[in-house]
């Protein structure tokens, strides 16, 4: 047995290409689809987006006869159709954090940045891939949710609304856009904190702890401040009407988009500067 015989021969590569953004986009897509957490989180997100409203509609429909007039007045078809958005956003946010933070916890970020040492294309690709897939799944999900809940409610001919009525189509579609933006915001948090638990905690703090905390403030302060919180501003884009202490859909959407842009800008700045 000779050592020469066992010398491994590395096959040569005939063609060489450079790193381009479409290639990084494809690479990030491969990474995204090839871990289990993606299917799980998106599956849970869709299930909640559709399942929660179905349950809501079924219960409303079956109890309509016994409900008081006030109760009946408090139910709106749009609230029922989009009831899943508020819970689905958590699943989407967790995945958003995870897509970045898991790269750091497993160390795969070193392989990623060795292949794409300019780094920023990786962040843009992750954001774009995630935005595309969450929109592609959430738009059908909210549409299914809207038409299915309407069908359930139509059996007793209650709470019927046309999708062509003013604002309805906008609200339904913006429900999906909101979830997508929440996912991007969470991804930016994940890139800033670089830690799964920390990223999810930060997201939960901003979206689920901060709003109720505002009620400890004097009423006038709360009224003035709360509408500008990311969660409250963001949800206006899928709300039909706004009150005296909530922003208009357009203003709320712009405020929430500004939060997302700021978080992504901070993430990008840190991504370029920090050691990995």
């Amino acid at each position, binding site marked *: 047995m000779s050592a020469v015989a*066992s010398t491994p021969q*590395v096959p040569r590569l005939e063609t060489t290409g450079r790193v381009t953004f479409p290639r990084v986009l494809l690479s990030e897509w491969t990474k995204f689809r090839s871990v289990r957490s993606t299917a799980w989180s998106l599956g849970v997100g869709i299930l909640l987006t559709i399942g929660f409203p179905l349950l809501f509609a079924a219960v409303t429909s079956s109890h309509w006869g016994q409900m008081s007039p006030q109760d009946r007045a408090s139910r709106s078809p749009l609230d029922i159709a989009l009831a899943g958005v508020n819970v689905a956003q958590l699943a989407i946010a967790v995945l958003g954090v995870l897509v970045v933070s898991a790269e750091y916890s497993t160390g795969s970020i070193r*392989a990623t940045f060795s292949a794409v040492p300019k780094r920023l294309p990786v962040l843009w690709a992750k954001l774009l891939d995630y935005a595309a897939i969450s929109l592609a799944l959430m738009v059908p999900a909210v549409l299914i949710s809207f038409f299915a809940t309407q069908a359930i409610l139509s059996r007793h001919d209650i709470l019927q609304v046309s999708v062509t009525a003013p604002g309805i189509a906008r609200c339904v579609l913006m429900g999906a856009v909101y979830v997508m933006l929440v996912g991007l915001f969470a991804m930016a948090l994940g890139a800033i904190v670089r830690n799964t638990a920390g990223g999810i905690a930060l997201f939960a703090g901003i979206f689920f702890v901060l709003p109720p905390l505002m009620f400890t403030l004097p009423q006038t302060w709360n009224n003035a401040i709360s509408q500008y919180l990311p969660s409250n501003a963001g949800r206006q884009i899928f709300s039909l009407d706004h009150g005296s202490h909530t922003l208009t859909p357009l203003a709320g959407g712009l405020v929430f988009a500004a939060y997302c842009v700021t978080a992504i800008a901070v993430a990008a700045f840190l991504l370029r500067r920090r050691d990995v």
Partner: protein
Amino acid sequence: MIEVTNLTKDYGDKRAVDGLTFTVQPGIVTGFLGPNGSGKSTTMRLILGLDAPNKGDATVNGKHYRDHPAPLHEVGALLEARSVHTGRSAYNHLLALAQTHGIAKRRVAEMIDLVGLHDVARKRAGQFSLGMGQRLGIAAALIGDPKTVLLDEPVNGLDPEGIHWVRNLLKGLAAEGRTVFVSSHLMSEMALTADHLIVIGRGKLIADTSVDEFVARASEKVVLVRSPDLTRLQEELAGPGVSFESAERGAVEVHGLTAEQVGDAAASAGVVLHELTPQHASLEEAFMNLTRDELEFGAQGAPVEEVVA
């Protein structure tokens, strides 16, 4: 070719790499040797641009790593720490790397076959043994057919067959004209693989030399002396830079003097010698002698073995 100039990196108060300057030439295997914690992995991360230096510069094939439009064709790297998502299969890990450069899927399969991971390529990498992880890392390093290969402790966790395979692989890559830079904390491993050595300790350059020179330099000036009158001989030889280590009965190892110097001193003092033998330190001893003073936590004069244990 890798060029490192006055490279310095601090982590807080701790200086991990301290003014390193060296060049790694193509066509040979260059060993990067140093005790654990001496800054080898940090240096490699700095070369790859994963960490930014506080001072100095590192370039690969004439450019900063970050400025290469196709880095995987320039440098293939295996880092010491795992760089694979535990939930992703070996195949998809390599595919994602290949896709950043538009490298065909066929190449991914070739690399998997090359490192012998064919049967487990679709398994989650988290289930891999240390050795399988190393093989995957080597496949990732070679996927772009790079001009320069940078491997941090590649034989860690490999079985003897795997170690043999890596040795031949490195030699083969160098013979093809590539730059091969491979770190280890084991001198004996480097002696079998490397042609040239860069030795560091506490982040500082200790030696930049061929393997042969390194051994010769580190092992000179150790002489075994046997004499019936050791006490007087030691009195005669004592001086700055000279130390004694008791060997077997009636003999002593003199450090810091050549055989000629010891013989001359014995003759002029009229001390009878029964043996006068220059010692060739083993590679491991040569390495330890060189790095003894540079060991991170080495107490003054404490035996190295105790320090690294």
